[in-house]
């Protein structure tokens, strides 16, 4: 395709109207900003924005309303995590009672927030609804080690997620009702 180049008039060839036009535009922006008529930036640490719904912030672990750690250490999030930010230490074979009817829970759960890209695949893949991307976006620390969040910290930051199904509890209750058969 051949684009016809428009022949410039004498005035346009002097560049002057173009320059004047540019100066006009920048001047408008300058005065808009200086007078405060238009505002697009925010004084960040003093002013904060309202984090929208569905925002993908830092991933944290949650407990259910009965205080049980929902994670069962299936390690699917560790598997799916694109930057390999998650590392789960499985509990090992010892039978534990503190997990509330679930045989398995994480011994430790580490998320390296320096590696995390906040993609939300861990939340999507979690079969137990145990990990959620929350609204935290400003994570800081003094060292790399500090930026690796461990289980306790993740649970504390994650708080409680109201579980309407309570799968494991229901299963446990069902089994108790049938106990007479065994």
């Amino acid at each position, binding site marked *: 395709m051949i684009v016809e180049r428009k022949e410039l008039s004498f005035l346009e060839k002097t560049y002057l109207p173009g*320059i004047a036009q*540019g*100066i006009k*535009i*920048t*001047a408008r*922006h*300058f005065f*808009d*900003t*200086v007078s405060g008529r*238009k505002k*697009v*930036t925010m*004084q960040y640490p003093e002013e904060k924005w309202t984090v929208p719904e569905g925002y993908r912030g830092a991933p944290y672990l949650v407990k259910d309303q009965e205080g049980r750690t929902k994670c069962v250490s299936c390690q699917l999030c560790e598997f799916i995590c694109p930057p390999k930010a998650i590392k789960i230490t499985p509990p090992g074979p010892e039978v534990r009672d503190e997990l509330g009817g679930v045989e398995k829970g994480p011994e430790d759960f580490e998320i390296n927030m320096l590696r995390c890209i906040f993609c939300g695949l861990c939340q999507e893949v979690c079969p137990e609804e145990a990990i959620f991307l929350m609204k935290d976006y400003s994570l800081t620390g003094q060292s790399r080690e500090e930026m690796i969040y461990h289980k306790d910290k993740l649970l504390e930051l994650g708080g409680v997620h109201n579980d309407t199904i309570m799968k494991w509890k229901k299963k446990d209750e069902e089994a108790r009702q049938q106990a007479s058969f065994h």
Partner: protein
Amino acid sequence: MTLQDILIATAKIVAFVGLVLPMIAYSVVAERRISAAIQDRIGPNRVGPFGLLQPLADGLKFLLKEDFTPNYVRKAYFWMAPALTMIPSFVVFAVIPFGSSLFGEKMVIADLNVGILFTFAIVSLSVYGIVLAGYASNSKYPFLGGIRSSAQMISYEIAMGMSVIPVFMLTSDPQFYATGLSEAWTTFLAGTADLNLSRIIAYQSGSLFDWMIFKQPLAFLIFLVAAFAETNRLPFDLPESETELVAGYHTEYSSMKFALFFLGEYAAMIAASALMVVLFLGGWTLPFWGLDEPASNLFTGLLHIAIFIGKLGIFMVFFIWIRWTLPRFRYDQLMNLGWKRFLPLALANIIVTAVWLWFRS
């Protein structure tokens, strides 16, 4: 030259440098704040009230950064280049009359009768700093930047020099100095010759329309554009041109050496602005309220300096404004403009002015 002369000159130099250095520092702040406003941002506002202490923070940063010299550079030239960029910009200030008089002393460090020639001589030197930086870095981008710079500066110097000739053709009117001047001016100009910069101010002091910007608008336009090119400011910052040459001639520089280039650019801007104020905007005078004559008391003397700085500030803001408005010229466009447009125009301007003067006489 007596000891007293030397002391007075020293005092003037110290005072002047004390004035210019903060101006350089704050023009950097101005650049950042104005560019921010143009781009709908806020700019640096954290250090001190309204970010006014930002230059201190910047200076500290430059001083504390590692002064790194790559091991493949030509060391002597590499170290010399930043100084060579900074010094000419300062030396130019020596002949600029930045005020009328204080305590009976003329507010110009060296009241040379060849002021304008001196200025052009010194301005030509500033190309060496940049060319040397490009050569000494021993690296391709700085080298390209240096080459561009030399071609650009030489081209525009010619247009610049040609453009001011009509101004002096007008001002070297002996009849004007013989009859048209008040007593204060006559005393003030005693012993000066045609190329003395104070004479030009005197010539423009009569009324607003005596300013050369109105008498020689074409000369002003050419001088203004050439000043942009000479100071490597956008739209003519081809020696630096981040998008093509990383950082051009100062790619390999860091820390205080880089800062010298950086501040040298602003010093050059101030020098060019000062020159334009003197040549085209009536220098330290204003054509009313009696400010059109050399000061007779301290207050007026200080006011004249303030007027000079005010006019200078207008040019500085204009420099900055243009930078954030116009994109960079292509190299061939730059050469076209310099040689094929401005040089003939400047020559034509000389001839037209000469014809007019001949006709008038």
